[in-house]
């Protein structure tokens, strides 16, 4: 299998620049990084990809068993890095990809130079002595909401799955396919994302890490970011003055400066 085609891997920037991998989170695809890429493209070898089952990845490669655990996505990442034959990378993971990158770095530390974790959460559901921000019932409700938008999810993905080349509107469909994928896969990805518990993996990370926390983020609240920073052995933390969970779209400049500053300080 061609791993680079499977995950729609795109590489840009100078070949001798330090490699920078940008990994999108749950709910969207690599287009999430559109405002961030230009800032790094002059200095870094920038790698973009879609998780298996998201964006323009090969949906047929989605495996309900392999991808029922974040470790499965982490294996995908390792395979991508091996296929690209890059020196140790700077990995920027947004949302659930922060955990995916972290698991990959625990498994294959030699592939990673640094980790930037944007809005990370090792566990979304509250537990004894731990505040993740959500109750189990609320995650179930998310799944219902996703089901309610079944048509919205599926409408735009259909021509891509069926691959009807003579349809003139296909190009148009592709441009507006952002954040849309197969509803069944999206639903499974939601369960894998929101029902995982990776707290015990945090102390196993040896790679230098930066926790990027948004000041007002209902998905990954401040307390969760602090928890991650506290339990990651070799980590720094920066708080962005941003509302919401997607600073890569809503405040790309702040995100870029924080990351660049951390890179420069090393």
């Amino acid at each position, binding site marked *: 299998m061609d791993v680079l085609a499977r995950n729609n891997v795109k590489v840009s920037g100078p070949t001798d620049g330090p490699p920078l991998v940008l990994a999108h989170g749950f709910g969207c695809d690599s287009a999430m990084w559109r405002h961030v890429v230009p800032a790094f493209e002059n200095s870094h070898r920038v790698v973009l990809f879609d998780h298996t089952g998201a964006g323009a990845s090969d949906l047929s490669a989605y495996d309900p068993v392999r991808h029922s*655990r974040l470790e499965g996505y982490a294996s995908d990442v390792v395979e991508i890095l091996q296929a690209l034959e890059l020196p140790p990378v700077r990995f920027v993971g947004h949302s659930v990809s922060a955990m995916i990158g972290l698991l990959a770095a625990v498994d294959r530390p030699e592939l990673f130079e640094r980790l930037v974790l944007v809005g990370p959460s090792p566990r979304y559901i509250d537990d004894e002595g731990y505040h993740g921000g*959500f109750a189990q019932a609320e995650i179930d409700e998310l*799944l219902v*909401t996703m089901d309610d938008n079944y048509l919205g999810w599926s409408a735009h993905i259909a021509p891509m799955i069926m691959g009807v080349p003579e349809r003139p509107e296909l190009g148009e469909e592709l441009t507006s396919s952002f954040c849309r994928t197969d509803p069944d896969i999206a639903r499974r990805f939601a369960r894998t994302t929101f029902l995982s518990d990776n707290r015990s993996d945090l102390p196993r990370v040896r790679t230098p890490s930066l926790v990027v926390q948004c000041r007002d*983020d209902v*998905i990954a609240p401040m307390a969760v970011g602090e928890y991650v920073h506290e339990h990651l052995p070799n980590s720094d933390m920066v708080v962005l003055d941003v509302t919401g969970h997607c600073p890569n779209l809503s405040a790309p400049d702040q995100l870029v400066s924080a990351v660049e500053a951390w890179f420069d300080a090393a």
Partner: protein
Amino acid sequence: MSSDPAWAEAPVGLLELGPDGTCVAINRTLLAWTGRREDDVLGRLRLSELLAVGGRIFWETHLAPLLLVEGRLDEVALELRAPDGRLPVLLSAISHAGGTRVALSNAHDRASYERELLAARRAAELSQRRLQALQTTTAALSRAVGVEAVGEAVLDAAVGVLGAATATLWLTTEGKPRLHGVRGARGESAGPAPAPPEATAVVDGQVLVPLHGSGSTHGALLLLPRDDAGADPLDLEVLDAVGQQAGLALDRAHRYEQSASVAHELQQSLLSVPPPPDPRYEVATVYRPGVQALEVGGDWHDAFLVEPGVLALVVGDVVGRGLAAASAMGQLRSAVRAVAGPGVGPARLLSRLDAFVDQVPAAGMATLAYAELDLTTGLLRYACAGHPPPLLMRASGEVELLWEGRSTPLGGFVRPLERTAAEVRLAPGDRVLLCTDGLFERRTRSLDEGLDLLCAAAAATVHAPLERAVQGLTRSLLEDEQGRDDVCVLLLSWTGEVFEWSLSADLTALSRTRKELRAWLVECGAGAQDADDLVLATSEAIANAAEHGGAGCPEASVRLRARVERPADAPQEVVISVRDHGRWRPPTEALERGRGMLIISQLVDDLQVDTSDGTTVVLRSRIGRASA
């Protein structure tokens, strides 16, 4: 704006968001739907906070990014937090330079209708998935032959299409549960065998599936669900159906094994007839049934005397498998024995088998390698009917495929008017290998490559003892093979003519023995001087043995045995052994015996004495002629 009735009293909820996403304007309709006061909302709340929690996550992870990238959202189904519960709405939004305009319309009726549709669709999808899982499992079960294979298919399906983390299977053998196997991610050891319940049941968080057959219960399958975040739960209904299918498959498997064992016994009884013992040759064979061991095949090997002094060697392959092939094999094997006889020879034998096969259609297109070896002269006459060529392994180490004497398989539509045969002369120590194509033929390589590998493997075993050679050769060639086909191998070693004589201790027959031995030595190619020396040395050894080894017991005998050996790259050598049942004596008598030994050692190239069981004196001498 807030006072304009077109805004305030619009039949849809209207909302303006500032650049940071907080509400800057809200109409009265939406305030009423959410049960909030304008002051609590404006400048304080963001849109996601008006939503029920599922929608809030969806908004943050999916809709907000979508809005930021595409600038608009259309017809998104969400729920508002309302004073008396939730209100389903459809949301549309459009971004502009200063923020975002949002419109929400009441979707209560539509939402319940759509949920019904969705529920129906989900039920259909679930039933399709169930059907598929059941079909996949049933197909695997029906492909499995035999109880062990059905057990493997059950375990494979359990941790595969049925989605268990770990599966443990017990099968009932003679009324007792026997652990068949554990499969899955966690290699936990199995606990005690659970009693199979009436129907599939949940026990301590695990699922226990009974395997009921039509008459009896064949065992139980215990499944541990996967606990990965995104894993699907185990489906009890499907598992129950799988348990029933597995029970029926085990019914069939037990019946099949009973009939298969009949075929096996038949085949074994046909293969286990050893050729008559003779010092001039040795035969070693291997029969390796295919992995689907219950399917007997049509391969056979045979070795028998056509007439005194002529040994027939046969390896054949009847097309097909199962009882029909085994019984056709049995008939063809008997036909070969019946047809072979003095004056027939390989070519005519094959022609007569053609006629026989016309009467036994199940034996049609069988292939056969047939050879007759003259045990005195080493002349090998052979013929192949569509069968792999015999392999000649010279004692010197060279190997050679015998490509002559070939014709088509037995009883084909196109058959030669006369079958052909060929001949080759063996030297003492040479070996001949006959085998079926399963030994070297693979789908993944050409026939020539397979034969090259066969030659290489044979060359590596030339100097090994016969039994070890045939076993080692078969093992090395079958290493890469999945064991689908059955395999027959026959390896013959011809040691050449042997001189054997037994004398009573009174030596009345010594003079005749000397004459016979001399004649045999000359026949084997010894010159007059070599023959005289060897006869003299042998006489000394016999005299010693009779005198001292006989221990004064007149009925004791001395055994004389002589053979020709051809070591690799050396002239041929006569090896003569003289054996008695006495022991070495005290020194005085040993001295007498020792004097005889001195004479012998001057006459021969090598002298060895072995006293481990009686006394055996072994003499060796080259007899001039260089090896070919």
